């Protein structure tokens, strides 16, 4: 490793870090601005370049016409994402285990076809299903409700859970199950008592992917809800298209990306322990 290489490498890492961090810093700075500070051109550093104000943050917790209520959309998003992720993770893990340990056959359909069916759902553009989902939810009276979104999000997240877990179970030797069953476990017992405890890393990764895709979805939340059940991404977009000031928008954005930014730290924990390389792929 010569000197020029090291200099280039650290310059590159530094440049990319700046690029990554900049939008967050800009949002943070903007969230403390007032009308004056925004309309006088780009300003960055509070106190030095502009007088900070907390009205952006305050407006998020004020209800009524003056404020923007962030609490309800936040709770809605959390409920939908957590419920759908939990259900998908349970169903997906079971299915992935079944597919990795048993042979299924129905006519010409084999294991690999079933696996492909699950994973191929990721190719489906959301727009293809938007209108039928809309009509279907209206039919069962679940339009604009938490329940309706949970149903749709399961379809979105289940393939991800299956995809991660099938790979993970593939890396756990089958002898483990066989030994458990020789010891008198039922198939369900072997799965619950032997395999699951050894799959924690895979479950964490699958769970995280579910949380990410659930929390970040905009399209279905946007087309299948109106005013009663608003999720965070939809709430911020509707603010964006009205005359909402930049400072409220920025504060809103920061609050809605924080939960998953914390998840990023967890992912790195697992990655540094090397368990991610086995669980992902």
């Amino acid at each position, binding site marked *: 490793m010569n000197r020029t290489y090291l200099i280039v490498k650290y310059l*590159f*890492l530094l440049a*990319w*870090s700046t690029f990554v961090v900049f939008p967050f810093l*800009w949002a943070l700075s*903007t969230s403390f601005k007032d009308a004056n500070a925004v309309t006088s*051109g*780009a300003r960055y550093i509070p106190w030095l370049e502009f007088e900070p104000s907390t009205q952006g943050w305050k407006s998020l917790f004020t209800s009524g016409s003056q404020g923007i209520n962030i609490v309800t959309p936040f709770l809605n998003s959390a409920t939908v994402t957590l419920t759908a992720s939990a259900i998908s993770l349970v*169903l997906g893990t*079971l*299915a992935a*285990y*079944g*597919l990795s*340990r*048993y042979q299924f056959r129905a006519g010409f359909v084999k294991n690999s076809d079933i696996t492909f*069916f699950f994973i191929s*759902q*990721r*190719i*489906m*553009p*959301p*727009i*293809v*299903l*938007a*209108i*039928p989902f809309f009509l*279907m939810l209206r039919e069962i009276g679940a339009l604009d409700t938490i329940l309706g979104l949970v*149903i749709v999000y399961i*379809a979105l997240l289940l393939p991800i859970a*299956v995809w991660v877990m099938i790979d993970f179970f593939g890396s756990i030797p089958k002898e483990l199950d066989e030994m458990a069953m020789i010891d008198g476990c039922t198939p369900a017992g072997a799965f619950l008592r032997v395999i699951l405890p050894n799959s924690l890393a895979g479950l964490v990764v699958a769970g995280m992917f579910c949380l*990410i895709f659930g*929390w*970040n979805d*905009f*399209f279905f939340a946007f*087309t299948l809800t109106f005013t009663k059940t608003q999720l*965070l991404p939809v709430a*911020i*977009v509707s603010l*964006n298209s009205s005359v909402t000031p930049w400072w409220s*928008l*920025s504060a809103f*954005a920061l609050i*809605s*990306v924080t939960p*998953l*930014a914390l998840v*990023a730290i967890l*992912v*790195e924990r697992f*990655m*540094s322990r*090397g368990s*991610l*390389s086995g669980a*992902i*792929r």
Partner: protein
Amino acid sequence: MLQPKHFFLLPALLTLLAIIIFPLLFTVRVSFSSWDVYQAGLDYIGARNYLRVFQDTRFWESLLRLSVMSAISVSLQYTLGFALALAVWKQTKGGRLFRVLFLVPMMTTPVVMSVIWRTMFHESLGPVNDLLSVFGIAPVPWLSSAAGAFASVIIVEVWQWTPFMFLLLLAGLVSLPREPYLAAAIDGAGPWRTFWQVTFPLMAPISIGALVIRLIEASKIMDTVYVLTSGGPGTATETPSYYIYIRGLRDFQVGYSAALSITYLVLMIVSLTIISKLLMRFLIGKDS
């Protein structure tokens, strides 16, 4: 009949079939009807909608635009993600900090960050043009010119999804075997040659996986476009998803948008299959 193994698979399979298959079949059926805002309901008009899709230049242009857009943004993501993964792979000061930092954009909600990016690209009040002016570059009409808007969408996509490439490629690098490197070192290969003759070929399978996954996701792009440019100016950044959204959920031409959706879905499946086959031949040098 029902064995224990079925209790593992069936709940998930039936759930997914129930949620996905009926809507999909319904879309196929609707695509043969003239369902629109004046006439709601399922009649049968044959393949008329599909003939109209065939002549709809706005749709084909959006497909071409999507291809160019995803080709540029995914190759940028791959190159940058690979470079970043290589940079933090071997012992690097602050390596852990960089790794956490680099993952963050992937975790953020695309539409939420697009709202922030929109303020950043603002022509007179945003920081992007302000910083460019430091280098003596005249203000760029980011969101109001065709080329600017196109570039903005790509910049945001690269910001958001390079972390995904970084994550997969770093996971791949970490699990590479040691022996080929020893052999290369004995041969006296420099870092440049080692990369092209050892690292890159060994990383080919995971590279293909990462590229294909990203292309699949990129082919669905709509959120970022909706918030950042609304497909504009004009139709300069309109993607197929966004165009179908306008036809179906704004103009309420349900039948026609269903035909567009099915055409789009089939084209995506076919082209992504071909692309992954080509990638395999190109990067591994053999079929499947």
